[in-house]
């Protein structure tokens, strides 16, 4: 199990786009229609958490649930 970006709260999101810029792996994009941030490529989340750290609204949730397929060296 591993952390991953789980949810961006559309109520709290003010559409500033800071998270889109801060993500090193291009997971988050702005939705053209709603003008809010959406998780577009969740499989590329590298779990760094910059989006949640940078969000001025605290709108981004990082989950302890298994969302990303996890491969280990042994198990």
């Amino acid at each position, binding site marked *: *199990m*591993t*952390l991953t970006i789980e949810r961006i709260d559309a109520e709290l999101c003010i559409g500033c786009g800071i998270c889109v*810029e*801060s*993500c*090193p*792996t*291009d997971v988050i994009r702005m939705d053209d229609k709603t003008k809010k941030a959406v998780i*577009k*490529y969740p*499989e*590329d*989340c*590298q*779990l*760094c958490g*910059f989006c949640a*750290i940078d969000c001025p609204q605290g709108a981004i949730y990082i989950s*302890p*649930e298994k969302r*990303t*397929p*996890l*491969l*280990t*060296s*042994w*198990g």
Partner: protein
Amino acid sequence: MADKNNQEIVIETDVLVIGGGIAACFAAVKAREQGVDVTLVSKGVIGRSGMSPWAHGTMAVPPEKKDKIRELADQAHVGGEYLNNCTWTERVIRESYARFQDMLAWGQPFLKDEKGDYIKPMSGNQEQEGRLWALEDGPGSWAKSLRNQPVKMGVRILEKVMIVDLIKQDGAVVGAVGITRNSFDLYVIRAKATVMCAGSGGFKPVGGWPLGDLTSDGHVMAYRAGAEITGKEFEDFHNGMVRRQGGIWLSNILPMTNAEGDSVPGFGFGLSADIEAHEGRAPLYRGEDEVFSGVALGLSVHTAEGVWPVDEDCSTGVSGLYVAGDSCATMIVGAAYSMGGSGSCNASVTGARAGLAAAGYSRQKVLPSINWEEFSELKDSVIMPARRKGGFSPNWVTQLLKNAMMPYYILRIKHADRLQPTLAFVEFMRDHLCPRLFARDPHELRLVHETKNMIINAEMKMRASLFRTESRGTHYREDYPLRSDPDWLAWVMIRQVNGKMTVYKKPIPQEWRPDLTAPYEERYPAAV
């Protein structure tokens, strides 16, 4: 879907710097200080890309502490099992304090005690006293400050632009081609000199250190341009451990017990956890309820893999191309990572040197005119995956590659019986899957090129691991379990010759070799 009739955005600059971490920022700032025009390009965001955000601190030794410099250099020599480059080790330690002063001047705060002296990071041990300085806010600090100085100096910054290939003409690198995230437009950056600071790379491990954007782009681009690569047989053991209960564990030195309740010896930057698994004594526990599995990062040893710098100015032997940071194999440590904090320090020292040298080189050059006929072939190779109607998705191919590389018995406990078939599989990926990768959108086009780079890196790692027929440092061969000083006081070099990956030895200079008449235990005091 983005328009596939791409536009070309042409930028002309004196010095192009590729990357977004400590090395890239030092290169950009030091070049800019020389008064030349500088363009800094990151596929992510400056300060948030690559490994730099995860640094705890940096190594810095005041130049007057000559004994400390000597002691550290000697430790790196023995700890790296005689495969460090002694000249670079001493150079980087000697210049560490000046670069630390730059970091302070750029507004990066470091931790101080009540007397106002800089102090070591929490994770530091006594041995690190007096040389390793902690970032005030811990890991993540660079993300806040690193971008400021290049911006202040008037460096042109392009973010979310992935450089895919270097433009080489008449034997010299004269710029690079990049892609962007919202369209299939191409960036054509014409540059008099180029500094590669795009880090090293792993295989996008999930759980463990965040390496999702480190895909060996810099090593592979420089390799294609003709540079020499080294250090690929070694492994970085900044262990990423995954807690079964959820979450990831990023610390690397933990007391552990195995499934039989015995404590695991020497757990840290070493093989012991993997050996426990290999012998059937996994999982590992910390306390009563935390259960761990290992994650192979796929990185080689920090600062000891990548492009071989042919001179003290970080030049590569390919005109117009310089390397710095984890793209540059200064080999300040050798077969094992024996000098904590040296990654950040090495990045700043090589970044500064490469930036200065590139600025000097650019002053002697005029911007060469592009041979557009040759260039159109390169351009096609960059954009072709977006023009294909079908093929293989980069995510699927990356998953296959991860499946091949992740098990402990490939990169950590090695054997020719496993390396050879894995190499054959990687060659199939290179020859059959790579040419058929296709991208449905610009995001996937980035993934296609990252996947191709990771596959070339995997090939390098398999070939280098097969080639070194001994065990040394973090390179462990079950079929050659002992060190072999007569054969292997040498670096494993990789270069493209007539389109083929070629592996060969570069001997360690005589004066850096250990005394072969001394008892084995003296030569290798850390050996168990």
